[in-house]
């Protein structure tokens, strides 16, 4: 196992001021979420119902996928199926190649990040312009989003100003967020106007009507789609819900959990393409069926990508999204990513304190912290844990399994801290001493104290 998360986090926290800003900002969003949740007396019932609707849908997924396909096809939508990331990317490229169009605008879709679509299309001569403001910022900087709802949360306005000055010729050192947003607005409106193909993600796909629902605040998904001749929507198989009436439950939970808004500005329901235009929906697996087959991890497919678990996580807030080195960071990403590649992501389930706050805020009641713990066990069983951890665990089992060894090492430890505190507090020799001072040691162990004092009673 690599220690990528820990090493990346060490770099992130090197800038203390920025780390504190990141921590406070995300915690502020968490408190906005709490206020929004408290505004509805039925909040807990909504979570329970949302969780059960998702459980029901996953239990009958084969039926709902076929129903969705049939209804969408009836609506004039072209349905495509992709078993993995590469198949998904090839379908997008084929649609573009059939029309000889070389440019595409794209609104937020974490699935396309997961599939590395941008890199694939660029390698095939297609220009992709991300139109969500945060995603455009990270795209211009050649980075990936660090948060699924707030892609550029790791950046300060000075960084954005610098990036826009370099790429969009904005005024140097003008750090006003309104000014910078307007610069992006003008720049992206040109792209909306020029682009004939628009790709969006899917928040919910309704089986009984064949419609898809896309939730945004900026209006970029709709501007892209309605101007273009071809709309491509990419969705994971888990996005389905049975009926439109179920949308009410999810739309009431989604934005409140994500940013504390009562609802996103736009909840767009796409059912049929406009006359003379095309609408394609790509239904993607990419190992979701493997997650579905595992009782321990199946419920992670209920996720509606609100990122409430990111905002509340003490580790995410203090390590930043890029430390997770995957398209989806945070607690939910740490239980989804090992399913895609256990070896490469073996460090992620360990990037948690298992405090359970993620589980408490999850609008669809995924037991995230339990699944993190279960992944740890799987990773150790498969032998993907770090060598340093393996050695330490083996050593500990010898020490804790033998009273003589236990007493001896205890004594040795107390002696070390007492007579060589500088060695014990040296973070290079003792990782436990990183950002911690070792405690004052007692003269005797509890056992020694007990043997001595028992007789006094």
């Amino acid at each position, binding site marked *: 196992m690599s220690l990528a998360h820990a090493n990346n986090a060490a770099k992130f926290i090197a800038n203390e001021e920025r780390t504190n800003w990141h921590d406070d*900002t995300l915690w*502020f969003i968490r408190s906005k979420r709490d206020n929004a949740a408290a505004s509805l007396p039925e909040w807990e*019932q909504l979570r329970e*119902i949302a969780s059960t*609707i998702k459980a*029901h849908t996953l*239990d*009958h*997924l084969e039926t709902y*996928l076929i129903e969705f396909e049939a209804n969408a096809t009836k609506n004039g939508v072209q349905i495509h*199926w*992709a078993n993995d990331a590469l*198949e998904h990317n090839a379908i997008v490229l084929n649609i573009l190649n059939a029309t000889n169009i070389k440019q595409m605008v794209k609104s937020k879709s974490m699935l396309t990040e997961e599939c590395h679509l941008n890199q694939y299309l660029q390698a095939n001569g297609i220009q992709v312009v991300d*139109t969500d*403001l*945060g995603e455009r*910022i990270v795209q211009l900087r050649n980075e990936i989003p660090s948060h699924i709802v*707030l892609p550029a*949360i790791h950046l*300060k*306005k000075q960084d954005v100003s610098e990036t826009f000055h370099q790429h969009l010729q904005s005024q140097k050192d003008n750090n006003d*967020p*309104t000014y910078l*947003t*307007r610069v992006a*607005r003008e720049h992206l*409106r040109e792209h909306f106007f020029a682009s004939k193909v628009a790709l969006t993600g899917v928040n919910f796909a*309704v089986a009984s*009507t064949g419609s898809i629902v896309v939730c945004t*605040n900026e*209006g*970029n998904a*709709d*501007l892209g789609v*309605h*101007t273009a001749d071809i709309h491509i929507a990419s969705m994971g*198989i888990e996005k389905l819900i049975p009926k*439109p*009436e179920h*949308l*009410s439950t999810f*739309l*009431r939970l989604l934005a409140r959990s994500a*940013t504390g*808004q*009562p*609802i996103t*500005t*736009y*909840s*767009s*329901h796409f*059912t*049929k393409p*406009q006359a003379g235009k095309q609408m394609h929906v790509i*239904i993607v*697996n990419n190992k979701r*069926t493997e997650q*579905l*087959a595992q009782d321990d991890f199946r419920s992670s497919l209920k996720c509606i990508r609100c990122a409430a678990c990111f905002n509340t996580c003490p580790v995410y807030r203090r390590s930043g999204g890029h430390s997770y080195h995957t398209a989806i960071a945070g607690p939910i990403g740490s239980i989804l990513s090992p399913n895609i590649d256990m070896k490469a992501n073996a460090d992620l389930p360990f990037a948690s304190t298992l405090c359970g706050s993620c589980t408490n805020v999850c609008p669809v009641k995924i037991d995230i912290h339990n699944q993190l713990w279960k992944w740890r066990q799987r990773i150790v069983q498969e032998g993907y844990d770090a060598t340093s951890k393996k050695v330490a665990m083996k050593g500990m089992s010898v020490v804790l399994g033998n009273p003589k060894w236990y007493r001896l090492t205890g004594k040795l430890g107390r002696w070390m801290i007492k007579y060589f505190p500088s060695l014990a507090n040296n973070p290079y020799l003792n990782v436990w001493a990183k950002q911690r001072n070792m405690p004052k040691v007692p003269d005797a162990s509890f056992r020694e104290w007990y043997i001595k004092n028992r007789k006094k009673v």
Partner: protein
Amino acid sequence: MSAREQILEAVTRANANRNRTALPAFSYTAIQYTDLVAQFTEVLERIGAAVTVVDSLLVVKQWLQALPIGKTSVYIQPNLMYSFDTAYLYQVDVAAMHGTIAVAENGAIWLPESNMGNRMLPFSTQQLVLIIAQQDIVHNMQEAYQYIDTSAQGYGVFIAGPSKTADIEQSLVIGAHGPIAMQVFIIKQVL
């Protein structure tokens, strides 16, 4: 085996021999408000829209006529076909249209395709004006979905306020890619 067959087969296999969860009942009362107009107005103002209660549609049309000279404005008659070209749609300053259901809980207004003239117009216009009848304000989203048929038309959208973003240092900026401003007119109930 096609990707479709592979996926459906894998899902079926994963779901075999499983106790299947039933669909839940909506076993609770969704939030109700004593003053629908006040609640709806409060939420919309909080999310950056202006709200005015008026006596009739005539007042809205007068408001449109009184816009400064040089502003391009358009009023969309419900259920009427319009043909606009894309360049024009990007030049509109003010577009007024009728919503069919408004939600007090979150300030959202349902706008079906037949009431927007063109799918792009509610997004390309600089200022969006939505007109709603007072009796069409409902308490919550659950109620709203009972009144709308989401798939009767090709497209429909709930809109709550002007477009916005907080992607730069979490500073709220009203006016991202869609409208920079939004005006809602509530036409008073005629008793």
